[in-house]
C-alpha cells in the first residue's frame, strides 16, 4: 500500500450542508471534520442517506444551490478555504488539483461527445494544450487505465463502451491533470463484481504510480478493507468513528460500526448462524436530531445518549469515537 507522508493537504472543519425543502430542512452533513494527508487513501463509509456523497460534493462545491447550501464550516486546501473562493477560482481547482469520479458511468459521460473529446476538454481547460499535445496525452492516459486499442477508442462514443470501460474513461479524465486529490464517489457500486475487482486493482496501481490522495466514498466494507488506510464512519450526517483501517476492523468502538460489521454476511465466515440485526431504521433527516442520532437503535444507549449529542474523543492511535458508551473490548469473532 502506498505510504502516506503525514502532511495534511486537505482539512475539513465542521462542515454543514443543509437542504431547504418544502417539508423541512434536511441536515445532510451536520458538523463533519476530517483531514487527508498526501498520498493517503481515506474511506468515508456509511449507508444511504448518511451524508457521505453530499460531503464529497460539498468539498468541490457541487451542491445545487437552491435547495442546498453549505451553511458553515471550512475546507482548507493547503491552507486556503475552498468555501471562500470565487467560482472561477474553484473551477481552476476542479479537475486539476482535485478531481472526482462518480458512481454512474452511464450518465456521467456526455453521450454526444466522443471519449477523446471529453478527455481533451479537461486538458484544454487546465493545461491549455494544443490538439496535438492533447492527443498524445490522451493516448498515454488510455494506456495508463489499461484500455485496449486506445487509438480506436478515442473516437468512440460512450454508448459503444461497456460499464467497466466507461469507468476507466472517467478515471482517465480525472487523472488527466495529475490531481493531488481524487474523490471517488461509489466508483464500483454499479459494476459487476469481477469488473469491480479490475477497477479497484487499477485504482491501486494508479495510486502507487501517481501518489494521489484518494477520498473513497462507499457503503461496502469489503472495498474499504481492500483500499483504505484510514476510515471515517458516518451516520445521519455526522461522523461517529474514525480510525486506521486495521483498528476499525479489529476494534470497532462505536456500536453502529460494530453493528454494521456483525450484520454483514461474509464470504470468510463459515458459520451460518443468524446475522446480528440492527433493529429499527435510519432516522428521518428532516427533523432535528436531539442527542445521539443512533441512540434509538442502540443496545448500549443510556439516558445521556438521548439528551446530549456525543463528542468525538481520541481513544489512542488517532482512533476517534463519538459515543458515550463505546465498545471497549475487541470484536468477538463468533
Amino acid at each position: 500500500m502506498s505510504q502516506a507522508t503525514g502532511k495534511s493537504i486537505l482539512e475539513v472543519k465542521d462542515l454543514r450542508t443543509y437542504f431547504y425543502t418544502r417539508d423541512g430542512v434536511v441536515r445532510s452533513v451536520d458538523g463533519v471534520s476530517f483531514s487527508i494527508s498526501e498520498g493517503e487513501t481515506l474511506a468515508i463509509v456509511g449507508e444511504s442517506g448518511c451524508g457521505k456523497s453530499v460531503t464529497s460534493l460539498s468539498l468541490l462545491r457541487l451542491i445545487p444551490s437552491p435547495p442546498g447550501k453549505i451553511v458553515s464550516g471550512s475546507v482548507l486546501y493547503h491552507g486556503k478555504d475552498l468555501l471562500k473562493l470565487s467560482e472561477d477560482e474553484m473551477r481552476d481547482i476542479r479537475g486539476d488539483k482535485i478531481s472526482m469520479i462518480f458512481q454512474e458511468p452511464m450518465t456521467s459521460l456526455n453521450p454526444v461527445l466522443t471519449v477523446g473529446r471529453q478527455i481533451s476538454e479537461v486538458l484544454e481547460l487546465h493545461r491549455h494544450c494544443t490538439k496535438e499535445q492533447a492527443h498524445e496525452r490522451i493516448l498515454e492516459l488510455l494506456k495508463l487505465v489499461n484500455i485496449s486499442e486506445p487509438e480506436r477508442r478515442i473516437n468512440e462514443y460512450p454508448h459503444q463502451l461497456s460499464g467497466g470501460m466507461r469507468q476507466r474513461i472517467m478515471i482517465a479524465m480525472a487523472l488527466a491533470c495529475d490531481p493531488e486529490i481524487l474523490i471517488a464517489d461509489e466508483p464500483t457500486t454499479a459494476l459487476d463484481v469481477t469488473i469491480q475487482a479490475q477497477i479497484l486493482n487499477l485504482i491501486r496501481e494508479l495510486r502507487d504510480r501517481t501518489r494521489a490522495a484518494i477520498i473513497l466514498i462507499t457503503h461496502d466494507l469489503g472495498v474499504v478493507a481492500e483500499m483504505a488506510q484510514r476510515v471515517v464512519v458516518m451516520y445521519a450526517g455526522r461522523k461517529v468513528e474514525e480510525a486506521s483501517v486495521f483498528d476499525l476492523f479489529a476494534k470497532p468502538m462505536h456500536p453502529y460500526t460494530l453493528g454494521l460489521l456483525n450484520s454483514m454476511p461474509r464470504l470468510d465466515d463459515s458459520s451460518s448462524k443468524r446475522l446480528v440485526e440492527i433493529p429499527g431504521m435510519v432516522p428521518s433527516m428532516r427533523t432535528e436530531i436531539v442527542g445521539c442520532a443512533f441512540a434509538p437503535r442502540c443496545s448500549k444507549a443510556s439516558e445521556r445518549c438521548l439528551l446530549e449529542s456525543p463528542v468525538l474523543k481520541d481513544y489512542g492511535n488517532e482512533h476517534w469515537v463519538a459515543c458515550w458508551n463505546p465498545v471497549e473490548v475487541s470484536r468477538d469473532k463468533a
Partner: protein
Amino acid sequence: MSNKQKQLLELKNLCKHYPIRKGLLSRIAGYVYAVDGVSFSIYEGETLGLVGESGCGKSTVGRTILRLIDPTAGEILWRGERIDELSRTEMRPFRKEIQAVFQDPYSSLNPRMRAADIVSEPLRNFEQLSQAEGRERVSELFALVGLRPDQMLRYPHEFSGGQRQRLGIARALSVKPKLIMCDEPVSALDVSVQAQVINLLGDLQQEFGVSYLFIAHDLAVVKHISHRIAVMYLGRVVELATTNELFEQPSHPYTEALLSAVPIPDPTRQRKQIVLGGDVPSPINRPSGCHFHTRCIYAQARCKVEEPKLEEISPGHFVACHFKLNT
C-alpha cells in the same frame, strides 16, 4: 439429500431467446440468448441460490419459472407436471404454490393501494373472504413479517424500503406457497436492513418449510442463505453444488474468479486475487465453444471449439468445464 426430499421444481434445458428485429420489415437480425439450456431442480424446504453477473440470465430464469415470460424451449416441471406451455388461465392454480418477491421495494407495490390490500391480493384471487376475515389474515401476515398490524391501512410510500420488502414477502406468503422466487430481494436495501430481511427469510423457511429460489449477485448473501448454489454465465449454468462445496472446492474457473473478486471486510487478509481481463461478452454475439474461454486463465484450444456439458464430478456437484479445477 435429494432422493429423500420431494422434488418441487425441475428445469430441463430451459431456453429463452429474444429475437432482435431490424429494418423496415422487422426482420430477425439475431437473438439475445438470455437463457440457453438451463437445468436444475429445487427440493422441498431448501434454498437454491442462483448467482451470476449482469446479463447472465438469472432474472430471466426466475421470471420464466413464474411464467411472467414464456420460454422459447425446454421444460418446466412442477411436481412432475409440465407448466411451461400452459395458458394464463391454466397457470392460475399453480400460482398458489409458486410466488415471488421482487427486487425493487419501491415499484413492486402499487402506490395507490393500501398495504392490507396489496398483501391480501393473492389470497383474494383464490379465496372468497369477508372483510373481517381478510383483515384477520392480513394481521397474521403482518405479525409474521415483523410489521405492526395498525399500519395495515397505510400506503406504500409511508413505509421504509425494508418495510416495503417485508410487505412483498407477506404478499408472497399469503397463499402459503411451496416455492418463493426471490429476485434480488435485498440488493436495494441498506446493509443494516439487509440483515433483518435475510434473517426473516431464514426464519420463515424454518417455520413453514417453504423453498426459495434466491437470485442475487451478492455472493456473501447467497452463501449465507442457500443450501445449494448454481453459478450462471451468459445464459448457462457453469457450476452447481452445495454451498460448502462451492466455496471450498470451486471447480469452474469462473466460480474461482468470482470468489476471489469479492472484497472481504478484513484488511489483514492478503489474498491472491484472480483479476479477469476483458468485459462480459454480449449475450447476442457469444464466444464459440465455452462462452467463458475469452476470459479464462486456463483456456486451451479445445475450449474455443467445444461447448462443455454440465457433468457430475462428485455427488451433487456439477461443473461445465473441460478442465475442471481439482483441489
